[in-house]
Structure formats: structure tokens, C-alpha cells
């Protein structure tokens, strides 16, 4: 074969190669995921009644070795049907500060299955369905539906179900619904649960994992393909998970938009007439290209660049530090302030941010929310952990990366770890330090572990334990093993578990594999054992508190010196001590951190000027970093600065009030 004929052959094959190599090329796409639950949905939105009328075909494959005799479905919108659902009982009708006005019946929502049949057998399955409550005994919760199959589904077999449903959207206070003419439609279609065979995520026997909708829980679903047709009034600007493949105007004043999304775990969409669309593109260094679509409120349009820059910073950071974003598009919805309950939420290829008119650049909330919600593309979508049972695997990991990106992403954000969240009138707050503060400054930081079903975590501590504590202990792990090893852990975890359902043990196994390989027995943590189970027992499964204190410095008359470090908390972690002497020499010492107190005898004959336990703040979980250091002759200048400020503002207050007299 000569070169010339090879070249022409390549030209002939080129379109086919392109089709096969692109992960989003419709039916020809090579699956990235197992594609267990595949949906074709046709839905019409009635903007007057706030109702959805839909038909869907679900193709579900039994990938387990079990014969599956029943299917379980989430009917999430039934959480809003009255005040008696588990969601409403747990939340009290409010979420993240937004409250449901329960005085108006039109503010509630529901979903109803009107037809259900097995396409292969023609059987009507609707008569046999029943609502079940796998998590509590709340007989008035209708968020999980059990569908018995007349014939069991053998391993490897596929069932095709034709379904029709109606739904009434609630007024937005908890992610989904309507607010005036703005619609954010999430958790809206009957969605099959996850069938977990024995051994998966530590299960002893196979069974459905399909929890009721809880106040703080988010979701858990299998990967699949979505072909969705949305019929909405023509004036509506629409955004959705995936890529738009067609748009057809209808004679009745509506239009039908078709979307396609492959290898995702959910599908959400928005429709609103007052929306300004801003398009941009992110181009990765490895050639990856992602289309950015911003659906901005017109009066927030001048903040579109802020959102786009944040998104590009996050894409660049994740691409380099964790792994490639495999989808061709990411859509960011900027909800209006009156629909703030829909802000800050994540769906595959589709996130909601949140800002307000006139927000100064120093208040970096749009950037922060955009970075955070984009991060969920990795820790919710690509690593589809169970957010009912292990929310920390998504929210906590994402919070940790939000901190890293905001604090150190560089251009186009360029903030520092001291001002990445707020930099206004001299007040500065970094992102990761805010997470730490959320955990370390709890009344009782030992209130509970990060691990556990979210509805069973200590009441009122979901955010602190799931987001803040996890981000803080991940930063502590990074401090102990080093950034390079930490990045390798995260990359290995990502590559190994993407498009699957990892659990705690999945991550721990990766840590226990990478750390001994890279650090061997030479790092301080090796004194605790051959793996890092001791670490996870304390920070993830346990409720121990870390607090080391540099208690005292002795400079003896004979020229020798000593330092005492106390362990005030019950958490035990290896710790470094840095000592500076009057000659300017600095020495580092190590302690396994196990005993209640430890005396360091400083060799040589020189006076200690100061000593600092954990000087690099590796033990970021330490609830008081101020008591980690001690100087023999401390400067009183900081006290002078704040006393001066206090004096000034006190006198100012006096003078302002003096205008009254």
C-alpha cells in the first residue's frame, strides 16, 4: 500500500473516525458510561397552570447478577404535595433561607403517573404500583414508587417501559419549580432508582437504592442517555442538560426543542422569557473544547464575564489537576432574585449560579457559586456517589476544590487565599479558610462525623459536617501527604471511578494504595500504621477534634532550652515543630502527636526566640491555629493596631451621636 492511497483511504474514513471519536455524536457515540437507565421524554410546559404533561420511554438494563422482580422510582415532586411529606417535615418548608408560602395552594407541587406499560409484553403495570417508604414510617410520603414486574428481569435483560405523567411545579423555594415567569425544572420526571447488586458499595445483598426525598439529601442515579423534547411557548428562552439538536415552531404558539445528553445521570432545564444568552468557549491546553452558555438575567448581563471567567478558571484547574471534562457544553443559569431558591444547584452540563444587581467585584459570590456548581460536574456527575448516604463524597470534595480553585487558580481570577471570597473595605476572607471556620468554630466541632445518611446527621449540622468538615480534613490530608501525592490520589480516584458509583471505601482504598507507594515509611504518618485507616477513622467516621497548643518555652540559665506542646483535643495526628533561636537558626522537630503532652529538648546552647507547632498549617483541622505558636518577647503592635482602630470608631460614634444634641 503506497502513501498516496493510504492518504485517500484515510480521507474516506475520516468522517466515520470523527463520529466514533466524539463522545457526543448521537447514536454512533462510544459510550463513556454503562448507560443503564435511558430515557426518551416528550414534555409540554403549560406556563399558566405551571403544569407538565409528559410521556417517557425508559429503557432499563439489569446489569446485576440478580433476577429483578420489581422496579423502584423516584417521584421527587411529590415532596411538595403538602406539608406532610418527609421533605417538608424535615425542612419545615424552607431550604437555604428560602421559604414556601404555604398559604397558597398553587405554591405546592406534585407528580402523577397516568400510564405505565411494558412495551415488550404489552402489560399494564400501573394497577400494581404502590408507594413505599424505605427510610421512615411516614405514610404520607409519596416520593418512592414500587412497580412489581409480572415476570422477573434476568441478568443482562432490558425492560422498556412506556410511561405518561403529569406534574404540577411548586413555587421555587427548594431548587425546582416556578417563580413568576421563570421556570427551573429539576427532579421532574419519574426516575428509576439504582439497583445495587451484592458487593456494590459494601452491600451484603442485592437490592434497590431508592430513598425518599429528604430535606438535605440530593440525588443518586444511574448513567444513561436522554433524548428530551420540550414544548414551551415561543417567547421562552430555554436551556437544558446536553446539546440542543433541533428547534421546531408549532402552530399553537409553542415551539419544540430537542435535546440530547449521553452518559449523564439526570436531566434538568429552564425556561424564561427575560433571558440574555451569552456564549463563550473554553479551550483547554490539551485541545479539549467546551462551549459555555450563560443564561443571564438582563440586568446581570454586565456580570456575564465574571461568570465566564470563573467557569474557565474551574475548567482549566480541573482539567489539569483532576481529569478531563468530557462533555461539549456547560450551561450556566442565572436565576432572578425572586427565584433565588433555584440558585446554586447542579445538574449534568447544567448549573445554576446566583447574583444580584450592583454586586461589587470584591464580593465574589457569583464566581464562588459558579466554581462550586461546576465542580459538581466531577463529584456529582462524573463520580456519581450516593448523595443520600454519602453526601460528603460530593459536597465535601467539591468544597475542597472550590477552595483550591478560588484561592489559587490564578488567571483569569487571580485571587489569593486571603481574599478569594470577600475583599471589601479592608475585610478579606479566603475560600478554604471560610470552610475551615465553618467547621472549626462550631460550638462543638466534635458534634459528629461527616459520614452517614444525611437525614440522620445531627440536626442542623448538615452543611458544616458535609461541606466544611470534609473540605477541612481533605486539606489536612493534603497537608500530611503533600500536594503532589494528594493530586495523584485525586487523579487516580477520578480515573478509576468516573462513570461509576464510588463510596467511602473506594476513596480510602485509593489513598491506602497511593500514599505507601509514594511516601513509603519515610513520612511522619507511617508511625500510625501501614495505611491511613487511622486517619479516616478519626476524621471521616469519627468525631474527634484536633487542637495542639504550644504550651511553654523554657530558656534555662545553662543555655539549654525546651518547648512543650500539648494535645488539647482527642484527635491524634503527626505534627512538626519549628524553633527559632536568637542566633537566627531555625530547626524542625517531629512528634507523632499521640501523647497528651510532649517536651522537646532543643540541642545546642542558644536562646529560643519563638517556637511554632505545625508552622505550615498542615493540620488544617486544628480548631485553634493561634495557640500553635509562642514568642518569648511577643510584639504588642497588633494589639496596638486594633486598639487604635477601636479608639477611632468609638470616638466617631460619639461624634455622630453628638449631632443629635
Amino acid at each position: 500500500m503506497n502513501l498516496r492511497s493510504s492518504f485517500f483511504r484515510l480521507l474516506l474514513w475520516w468522517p466515520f473516525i470523527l463520529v466514533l471519536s466524539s463522545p457526543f455524536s448521537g447514536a454512533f457515540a462510544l459510550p463513556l458510561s454503562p448507560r443503564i437507565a435511558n430515557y426518551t421524554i416528550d414534555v409540554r410546559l403549560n406556563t399558566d397552570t405551571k403544569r407538565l404533561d409528559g410521556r417517557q420511554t425508559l429503557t432499563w438494563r439489569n446489569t446485576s447478577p440478580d433476577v429483578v422482580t420489581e422496579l423502584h422510582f423516584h417521584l421527587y415532586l411529590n415532596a411538595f404535595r403538602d406539608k406532610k411529606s418527609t421533605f417538608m417535615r424535615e425542612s419545615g418548608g424552607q431550604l437555604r433561607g428560602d421559604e414556601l408560602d404555604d398559604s397558597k395552594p398553587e405554591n405546592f407541587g406534585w407528580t402523577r403517573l397516568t400510564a405505565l406499560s411494558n412495551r415488550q409484553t404489552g402489560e399494564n403495570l400501573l394497577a400494581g404500583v404502590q408507594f413505599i417508604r424505605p427510610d421512615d414510617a411516614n405514610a404520607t410520603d409519596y416520593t418512592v414508587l414500587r412497580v412489581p414486574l409480572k415476570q422477573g428481569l434476568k441478568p443482562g435483560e432490558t425492560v422498556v417501559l412506556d410511561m405518561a405523567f403529569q406534574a404540577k411545579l411548586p413555587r421555587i423555594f427548594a431548587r425546582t419549580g416556578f417563580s413568576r415567569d421563570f421556570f427551573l425544572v429539576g427532579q421532574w420526571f419519574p426516575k428509576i432508582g439504582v439497583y445495587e447488586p451484592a458487593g456494590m458499595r459494601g452491600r451484603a445483598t442485592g437490592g434497590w437504592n431508592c430513598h425518599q426525598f429528604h430535606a438535605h439529601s440530593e440525588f443518586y442515579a444511574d448513567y444513561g442517555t436522554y433524548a428530551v423534547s420540550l414544548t414551551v411557548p415561543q417567547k421562552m428562552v430555554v436551556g437544558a442538560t446536553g446539546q440542543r439538536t433541533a428547534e421546531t415552531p408549532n402552530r399553537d404558539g409553542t415551539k419544540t426543542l430537542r435535546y440530547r445528553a449521553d452518559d449523564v445521570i439526570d436531566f434538568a432545564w429552564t425556561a424564561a422569557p427575560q433571558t440574555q444568552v451569552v456564549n463563550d468557549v473554553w479551550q483547554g491546553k490539551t485541545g479539549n473544547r467546551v462551549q459555555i452558555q450563560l443564561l443571564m438575567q438582563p440586568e446581570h448581563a454586565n456580570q456575564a464575564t465574571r461568570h465566564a471567567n470563573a467557569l474557565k478558571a474551574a475548567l482549566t484547574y480541573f482539567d489539569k489537576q483532576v481529569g478531563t471534562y468530557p462533555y461539549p457544553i456547560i450551561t450556566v443559569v442565572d436565576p432572578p432574585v425572586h427565584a433565588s431558591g433555584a440558585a446554586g444547584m447542579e445538574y449534568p452540563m447544567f448549573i445554576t449560579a446566583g447574583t444580584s444587581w450592583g454586586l461589587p467585584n470584591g464580593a465574589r459570590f457569583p464566581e464562588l457559586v459558579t466554581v462550586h456548581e461546576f465542580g459538581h460536574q466531577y463529584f456529582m456527575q462524573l463520580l456519581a456517589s450516593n448523595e443520600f448516604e454519602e453526601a460528603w463524597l460530593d459536597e465535601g470534595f467539591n468544597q475542597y476544590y472550590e477552595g483550591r480553585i478560588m484561592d489559587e487558580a490564578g488567571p483569569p481570577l487571580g485571587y489569593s487565599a486571603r481574599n478569594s471570597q470577600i475583599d471589601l473595605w479592608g475585610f478579606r476572607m479566603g475560600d478554604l479558610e471560610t470552610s475551615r471556620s465553618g467547621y472549626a468554630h462550631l460550638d462543638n466541632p466534635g458534634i459528629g462525623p461527616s459520614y452517614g445518611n444525611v437525614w440522620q446527621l445531627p440536626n442542623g449540622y448538615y452543611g458544616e459536617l458535609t461541606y466544611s468538615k470534609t473540605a477541612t480534613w481533605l486539606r489536612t490530608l493534603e497537608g500530611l501527604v503533600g500536594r503532589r501525592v494528594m493530586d495523584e490520589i485525586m487523579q487516580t480516584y477520578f480515573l478509576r471511578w468516573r462513570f461509576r458509583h464510588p463510596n467511602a471505601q473506594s476513596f480510602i482504598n485509593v489513598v491506602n494504595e497511593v500514599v505507601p507507594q509514594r511516601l513509603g515509611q519515610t513520612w511522619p504518618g507511617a508511625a500510625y500504621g501501614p495505611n491511613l485507616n487511622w486517619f479516616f477513622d478519626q476524621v471521616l467516621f469519627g468525631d474527634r477534634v484536633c487542637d495542639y497548643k504550644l504550651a511553654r518555652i523554657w530558656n534555662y540559665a545553662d543555655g539549654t532550652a525546651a518547648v512543650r506542646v500539648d494535645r488539647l483535643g482527642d484527635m491524634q495526628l503527626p505534627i512538626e515543630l519549628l524553633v527559632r533561636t536568637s542566633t537566627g537558626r531555625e530547626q524542625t522537630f517531629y512528634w507523632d502527636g499521640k501523647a497528651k503532652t510532649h517536651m522537646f529538648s532543643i540541642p545546642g546552647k542558644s536562646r529560643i526566640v519563638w517556637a511554632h507547632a505545625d508552622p505550615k498549617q498542615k493540620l488544617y483541622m486544628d480548631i485553634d491555629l493561634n495557640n500553635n505558636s509562642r514568642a518569648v518577647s511577643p510584639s504588642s503592635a497588633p494589639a496596638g493596631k486594633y486598639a487604635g482602630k477601636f479608639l477611632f470608631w468609638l470616638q466617631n460614634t460619639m461624634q455622630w451621636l453628638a449631632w443629635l444634641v
Partner: protein
Amino acid sequence: MLLLLYGITLLLSLPVTLSLFGAINTETERSLAPLNLLNGFDYTVFSDFMNRHDGAIWPLLRAGWYSVLVYLITAIWTTGGVLNSFATGYRAVSFWQAGTYYFGRNARLFGVTLLFAIPLLVVAILIGSLLVIAVEDTLTERGIALIGFAVLAIFGLLLTLLLCVANYARVMLFRTDDAVAFRAFGIAGRFVLTNLRATFGPYLLIIAVGSALFGLYFLLEALLPTRNWFLILLLTLVQQAFIFGQIILKVWALRVAFEQVKR
């Protein structure tokens, strides 16, 4: 006299300030961490400190408020002395005597001022809230914010006018040796409204100068990083000069009113 007024401010502020200085020094327990607060602000240091030592700090902040209340009473007393100094020139004894003599009526006038100022505040909040509720479904965020700003501006202007009237009422009480604060407030109100340009104009100008001084202060503060004791003391001097400037403005406003009434 200006130095006396400044001295009173400083004297009432210093004890609690020095206590705070001592408390911060003690509570930081010789830590190196507060050094991070010198050049800028460090949220971790600040929040860790407040989390563990707020019990030592909040009582002092409360004591600061009590000092402000004491100053308010002292300011009622010094007003009589200041007005007397305009008429007869400053003498310590007459300042003291006039302050004591006019204290009761100035205190009542303060009450009358509050009697108007508090309802004005309540009405402003009420009108602002009702307006926002009425238009929130139709107006944009910017529109709602503008309504808020407009209500705030109108409230600010009316409050300034109220304070201007109270300023003239103080002079009326002094010049007519009247003891009825309400009557003096009424007379002053009519006087200010009939001579709006000559009375409210200068008053607004003084307020504007005060606001400009504030802007200047923030600029200077940004230019002066408090890295060490020398720079801290330098900033403290700037701060005290600014406070002294505010006292001058307050006395100036009273002097303008005094001269206007005299004319």
C-alpha cells in the same frame, strides 16, 4: 474650648481602649499569629481569636457603648458652655456654669429631637418597605434598589433638616433664655424654613465637608499600612486629627446658627 471638647472625647474613650489593648495582648497568649494582622487582615487569625476569646472582648465592646452614652450626656452639658463662649468668649468657669445652667433645657430638646427623629425613621422604613412590596412584582432589581436609595436619600435629607432645626432651637433656647424645648423647636422650625438657604444651606455644606473628610480618611488609611508601631502611631495621629476636625465642624455648625439668629 475645642481642645476641651476633644479632651473629653479622648478621656471617655481611652479607659476602654486601654483595657482592650491589654485584653488582646493577654488573650493572644504570646502567639505569633496576630503578627499576620499587622499588614492587612487575616480572617483565620481573627476568627480563631474571636471564637476562643470573645468572652474577654465583648464586655469591652459593650463598655464602649456605655462610654458613648456617657459622652452623649456630656455633650448635652457642653452645648450650653459652647453657646455661652460664642456670646462672652471662652472662660473655664463660665463654660462650666453655662453648661450646668442650660443642661436641663438642652436635655429636653434632645428628647424633642428624638421624638421627631424616631417616628421619621419608623415612617421611612414603613414607606420604603411598602413601596418595595408594592413594586417588587413589576420592577427590576435595579428599580427596587433605586427606590430604596431614593427613600434613604429623602430620609437622610429630612433627618438633616431635623437636626438643623434642633441646632437652631438650641441657639433659641440660649438667646431667649426660654426653658420650653417644644416651643423653641417650633420657632426654630419656622425660622429655618423661612430662611432655608441661609440656615439649611450652610448646615448641608458642613455635613458635606464632614463626608469629604471621611473619604479623605479612608484614602489615607489605605496608603498607610500598619506594619509596625511607628506606622500605627502615625495612623493614630491621622485618626485623632480627623476626630478633631469633626469636633470643629460640629462647633462650626452651632456657630453659624448662633450668628444667623443674632442677625
